[in-house]
């Protein structure tokens, strides 16, 4: 028992030490989306992948969906062959938690244009990436390395009126990556509700 505990402690430490880092291979994801389709990050090599942490009851997430900002970003990313995965790491009983079918319905209501929706109620994917808040955005380059870890934009608020005057940090990073340019401000502090693990 002691050795199992020790192993668990070592594994946990390992996971923390190897949280997602810019320029390093993105932590593996092997899961099924809400439609039952397999998502294997390794198989997506050669494509740019976006991971977006969601909780549709979080006021910061509401800001970017009700305004149409996130659906617009998702649509424009899809047109550029970017694979967009929205991850819901809210644990059962916590704000924003939804079972697969309910998450699909809710995402459709919110106007989501994400290619995949992922229920991560045990927080495995969220913790591997160190997802802190909703929304928290990550971009993985075609080489499978983490290229962006940060906020959707520069104005920490729940007011949709702030979107127009904010610096679109995430959109800028995505554009740069697609154009094979260096991503400026690749790691910045995301704002939002804490992920409800």
């Amino acid at each position: 028992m002691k050795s199992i505990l020790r192993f668990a402690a070592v594994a946990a430490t390992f996971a923390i030490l190897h949280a997602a880092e810019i320029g390093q291979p993105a932590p593996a994801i092997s899961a099924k989306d809400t439609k039952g389709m397999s998502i294997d990050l390794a198989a997506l090599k050669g494509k740019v992948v976006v991971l977006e942490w969601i909780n549709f009851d979080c006021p910061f997430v509401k800001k970017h969906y009700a305004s149409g900002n996130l659906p617009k970003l998702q649509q424009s990313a899809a047109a550029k062959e970017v694979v967009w995965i929205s991850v819901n790491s809210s644990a059962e009983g916590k704000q924003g938690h939804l079972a697969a079918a309910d998450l699909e319905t809710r995402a459709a209501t919110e106007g989501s244009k994400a290619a995949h929706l992922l229920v991560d109620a045990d927080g495995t994917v969220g913790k591997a990436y160190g997802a802190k808040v909703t929304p928290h955005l990550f971009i993985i380059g075609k080489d499978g390395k983490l290229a962006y870890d940060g906020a959707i934009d520069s104005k920490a608020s729940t007011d949709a009126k702030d979107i127009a005057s904010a610096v679109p940090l995430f959109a800028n990073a995505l554009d740069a990556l697609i154009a094979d340019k260096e991503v400026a401000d690749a790691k910045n502090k995301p704002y939002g509700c804490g992920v409800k693990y």
Partner: protein
Amino acid sequence: MLRCLAFSTVLSLAFSAALHARTPLPGHAELRWISASRSCPPGGSVDTAVRMTIDPGWHTYWLHPGEAGLPVEFSWTLPDGWSAEPVGHPVPERFVSAGLTGFGYSGVVCFPVRLTAPRGFTGEARLEANVTWLACSDAGCVPGERLLPLVLTAGEPSATPEAAQIDAARRTIPSPAKGVALEVVMEGEDALRLTLTTADPALDPAGAAVFSLTPKLIDPSTEIRFSGKDGRWSARVPLCDYFAPPLRECTLVIAGRPRPWQVGWQAPPPPEKSNSTNGASSAK
């Protein structure tokens, strides 16, 4: 059977009344704008405070909210000639919510603000405060917003029952300390060395909770603890993940007893260029 039904109706009514009483407040907080006096002489000042009573299990956020969250914000709609001093934000408490360290408030918190009337103030003035905030618990976050009215009449001040509470609230606001110096230097690549020097024994920071008012500088999940003696205190703190060099400034708030205080440090200006005619000596 009927009696049973009647009993259950009473029970369900009682239950729904209890539920109604427990209906969460918008933003999980109740707010009032209280005043130390209902009257204010022309050209005089009156101490007021926005009192926020936060639902149990929920918290709102300080100016530096920590790893997530948003500060409580105020905007004032005042009649011509009236002015409001900057609102005071009391020393916060540290909490961990949804695994993230936050700085903020729970229970009852008062944000004092001093208002000044114009010299020609007569009759009655209607003032409005618009307060926005984010409330979070382990389970979720909700935004809050409230428009609060305050009516003041021209005249000599007379204390309200809330005057003592407002006076107490003013004492929870950190003020810049005199006779203390803060020095901040990098220690390695991922830590800072903070040093406080003072000859004033009342400013002993050992054992006091310390908060950084400067965002994206010190890792919020680490408690800042000073140790030392003879007027020289020091603390090593890890840098925040989002720190972007160079090191420019740092303001610390110290929950000292009996009064909280704050102290700031700014990086010295870069060396003057030899051909510069700009008066860098005016920088303080």
